[in-house]
């Protein structure tokens, strides 16, 4: 009953968002503030605004959320009430971020998303990896949010206002501006899982797939991109921040793409690819040009479509097969069953992967191309950053094509070379049952789940054309070549039945382990130290006071011997002592 209410509410709310976006479309930008309180010289309160960016993001969020909500109706049955409620809250929080004109309202949405993602990731709280992944996600984003909060302080106090529309970079001291934006960037990096705060996102995969779709496509991680787009004037005013952003983005996109190339679980590959794609958007933003911003937002929109699609497809795999690990999926695939049993999923996922890989004609191709174009333009302007971004995005495009192809082939196609073997993935799960699964009951998911897939697949193709076709043919050609260069090795490896995964990549460069040793272990030690310190140092003093009191008491009892002459002696000694003492003090 309650679950039904929340289901309806969830779908309704996300449709409402779409409706609002539609209503607001074309309205002139405006702001409205409410519930303000004056604290000293600054005002703390809430404000909302509407402009193109709001409308765009609201639409994206609304559509993706609608797809996810509807999809979830079919996907999820246990604990549906809390699930749908949280997804709705999640969407609402993202909507708050999108419409916020007050940094505090933005922060509320920003962090409520973190909390919702925590709760949703740990939806399957029976599973160990879900629990730890959720905690990790929350803590890492929380850590970044501290920087974000401080950034708000710095900018807000520096500008004398916490209203986004009132932040004028010209009015802010350059040093303050750089500090503030850098601190905000910390929050962005955390939320969008960029290097060095990237490790939480892949570990968040134990959450339900629709949630992953939501997180990766429209909310949470996209919020970082949105934020910089929203505060683009402020960010662009600080060259230092933009350079840092460029470096972070470039490192991240390559790093994540490499990690994705070695991941052996569909959702994990997709997660790393999100990190990588977000980095591309950041790279575009870091150009500091209008084209860059436009390209980033364009890529954000197309990415929302195809990444949402991909995660929902992965969800179908999980739902119908039970796992999205390569090793499991291969057991179906080696008999060629998977593709045939799940035709719609196969087709839509192929579209999604193509879009992700940047195959010409699909949305991803166009948006990535616009990023490359922007970078190219900028590089021509003599910017080192532009060159840097251009080269990185190019390399990433190749890697993306590689891992998309790898995923597609290994999951859906039997390898002639392996003659029905699972492939290179047995080692991943020695306990896995390598017997043939019962494939007779395998069938495609219900229409509730497939309808969003189809919708998003259409989006993944069509969204590439909404911005109008203005391709720079040189860049487009180059990127196509890069894609081909990425695809070919994947095909070649697959056809030979080999999947070489360097240890370094498989361990994702050891970052996780290093963080564990650098942060988690010391904190555990410190916590132990703190507990012991309280017990054995501070507490010991208190106990020692008590014990010495008791001891003294016992001592005075022992002195009370009952012998009156002892008392008299003590008294006379006391007289002499007092005389001497007072003499000493007086002199």
């Amino acid at each position, binding site marked *: 009953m309650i679950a039904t209410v929340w289901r309806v509410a969830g779908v309704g709310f996300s449709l409402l968002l779409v409706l609002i976006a539609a209503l607001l479309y074309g309205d002139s930008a405006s702001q409205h503030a409410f519930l303000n309180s004056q604290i000293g010289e600054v005002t703390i309160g809430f404000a909302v605004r509407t402009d193109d960016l709001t409308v765009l993001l609201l639409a994206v969020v609304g559509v993706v959320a609608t797809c996810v909500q509807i999809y979830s109706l079919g996907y999820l049955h246990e604990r549906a009430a809390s699930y749908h409620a949280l997804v709705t809250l999640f969407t609402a929080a993202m909507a708050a971020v999108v419409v916020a004109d007050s940094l505090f309202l933005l922060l509320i949405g920003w962090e409520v998303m973190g909390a919702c993602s925590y709760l949703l990731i740990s939806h399957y709280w029976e599973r160990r990896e879900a629990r730890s992944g959720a905690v990790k996600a929350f803590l890492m984003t929380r850590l970044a949010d501290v920087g974000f909060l401080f950034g708000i302080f710095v900018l807000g106090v520096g500008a004398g206002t916490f209203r986004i529309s009132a932040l004028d970079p010209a009015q802010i001291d350059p040093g303050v501006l750089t500090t503030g934006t850098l601190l905000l960037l910390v929050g962005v990096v955390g939320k969008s899982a960029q290097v060095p705060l990237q490790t939480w996102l892949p570990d968040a995969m134990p959450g339900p797939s629709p949630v992953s779709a939501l997180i990766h496509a429209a909310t949470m991680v996209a919020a970082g991109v949105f934020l910089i787009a929203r505060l683009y004037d402020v960010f662009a005013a600080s060259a230092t921040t933009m350079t840092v952003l460029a470096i972070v983005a470039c490192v991240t996109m390559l790093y994540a793409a490499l990690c994705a190339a070695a991941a052996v679980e569909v959702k994990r590959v997709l997660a790393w690819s999100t990190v990588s794609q977000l980095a591309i958007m950041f790279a575009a933003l870091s150009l500091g040009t209008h084209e860059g911003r436009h390209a980033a937002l364009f890529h954000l929109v197309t990415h929302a479509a195809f990444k949402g699609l991909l995660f929902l497809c992965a969800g179908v795999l999980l739902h119908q097969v039970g796992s999205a690990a390569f090793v499991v999926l291969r057991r179906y695939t080696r008999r060629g069953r998977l593709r045939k049993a799940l035709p719609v999923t196969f087709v839509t996922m192929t579209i999604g992967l193509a879009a992700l890989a940047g195959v010409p004609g699909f949305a991803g191709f166009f948006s990535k191309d616009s990023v490359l174009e922007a970078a190219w333009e900028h590089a021509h302007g003599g910017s080192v950053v532009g060159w840097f971004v251009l080269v990185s995005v190019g390399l990433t495009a190749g890697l993306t094509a590689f891992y998309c192809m790898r995923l597609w082939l290994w999951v859906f196609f039997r390898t002639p070379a392996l003659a029905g073997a699972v492939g290179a993935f047995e080692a991943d799960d020695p306990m896995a049952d390598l017997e043939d699964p019962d494939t007779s009951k395998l069938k495609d998911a219900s229409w509730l789940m497939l309808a969003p897939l189809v919708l998003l697949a259409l989006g993944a193709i069509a969204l590439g054309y909404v911005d109008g076709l203005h391709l720079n043919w040189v860049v487009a050609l180059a990127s196509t070549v890069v894609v081909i260069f990425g695809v070919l090795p994947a095909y070649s490896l697959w056809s030979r039945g080999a999947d070489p995964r360097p240890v370094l990549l498989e361990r994702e460069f050891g970052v996780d382990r290093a963080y564990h040793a650098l942060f988690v272990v010391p904190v555990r030690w410190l916590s132990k130290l703190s507990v012991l310190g309280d017990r054995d140092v501070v507490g010991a003093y208190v106990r020692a006071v008590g014990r010495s009191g008791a001891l003294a008491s016992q001592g005075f009892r022992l002195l009370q011997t009952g012998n009156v002459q*002892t008392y008299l*002696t003590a008294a006379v000694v006391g*007289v*002499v002592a007092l005389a001497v003492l007072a003499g000493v003090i007086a002199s």
Partner: protein
Amino acid sequence: MTTALFAVAAVVAVVSAVLVVTSRRIVHAALWLVVTLGAVAGCFGALHAEFVALVQILVYVGAIVVLVLFALMLTKAPTNPLPTLTTARSPFAAAVAGVLALLLGTGVVIAFGKEKIKPVPAGDAETVGTAIFKTWVLPFEVLSVLLLAALIGAIALSQRKSGES
């Protein structure tokens, strides 16, 4: 003259006082106390306080020491020397007393070392009597309450409990 008299009495007083606190026979100690008190009375005399000297002899030697001797008898004090009459703490007690004497003696010598007493007779019964009844009426009256209370108290304590044989 008075100085010499005083010196003799003082020496006697000190020697006998030492014996009072060191004698191993209790009864001897009591008798040495008589000597000390007498010698102190002599000192009073030498300081021209004849009335006080007289009272000292009457009250102390005549009454108090007799009381003490009675008490010794009643408490069945042995007449033979007792090795345990002083406690084991006596060296310490001696040290404490010694330090005290040193402190007080030094202080007294420094403060009064140069002063002399003029030998003027001013201690007859009339002087003291007048002082008591002209100036010190209140303490005198209170003293009478004290004597009465002490007397009644002593009697009450000495009575056997009713029912006690």
